[in-house]
């Protein structure tokens, strides 16, 4: 596997968390820890970015099931009124 070095600044707390994960044996060193965390995150992003059709295929059976439920609850509890919410969207 061809690799290259990517200089990245990280917050002190993040480094401390990574070091803790190394200490408890989750990862052997900082390099592998950061690479694996990044790969895991990117795999999720890749999934999200595939396309909306994938999402629709995924939710279709769930939707078919929940629309049969009679007392299924859905509510918007925003402090703003519906008129305000729509109007604000039209001003932006």
């Amino acid at each position, binding site marked *: 596997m061809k690799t290259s070095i990517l200089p990245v600044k990280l917050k002190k707390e993040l480094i401390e968390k990574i070091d803790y994960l190394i200490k408890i044996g989750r990862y052997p060193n900082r390099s592998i820890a950061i690479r694996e965390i990044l790969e895991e995150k990117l795999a*999720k992003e890749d*999934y*999200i970015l595939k396309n*909306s059709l994938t*999402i*629709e295929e*995924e*939710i279709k059976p*769930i*939707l078919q*099931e*929940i*629309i049969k*439920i009679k007392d*299924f*609850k*859905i*509510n*918007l*509890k*925003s402090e703003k*009124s*519906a*008129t305000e*919410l*729509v*109007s604000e*969207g*039209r*001003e932006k």
Partner: protein
Amino acid sequence: MKIVYLDTNIIISFLKKEDIFNEVSRKIMNSIILERVGSVITILEITSIISKQFEQIEFDITKTPHWDTLTLPAKKVLVTSYFLTITPIKFYFNLGNENYSVKDQIHKIHVDFTKSIQLSSFFLLKTINNLQIASALNLRDIQNIPIDYFVTTDNDILDQAKAIQEQTNLTIIHPEKLAEIEYL
């Protein structure tokens, strides 16, 4: 049977149980003497509001299979799809393009946009308000859906209701006024 074009604010009132117009929006949604219609721009606005207000949405996740495994975009699509499915509105899509001239070049643009451009010269509406009125007029004039009322709580539109009606023959009405005159 009367046909009502519902502006997005009526539909969001229906979603928001504590909204000042929730009761009247439910009357409109449940009325057997009304046929409710909306357009693609309405779907776009509903999707946008649910996405932006997602943290404020109460959704029965305990009854939703696989909720925890869904990504955030998938959750948003599911909630929006569910809401659109249970809301008794028929959504129509105006199809077709018209010629529009810009800098001596003829462009083909969507009929809702050409209508919206025409309306801009007559009224001082916000762009999306303009597009909503344009969509309703095209549903009536191109798709021959005889819309009796355009129902909204938007003050920008209501303030210009008389002028819009005079110019386009489209009746703009507040939901409470609709409920009063149609005995909902």
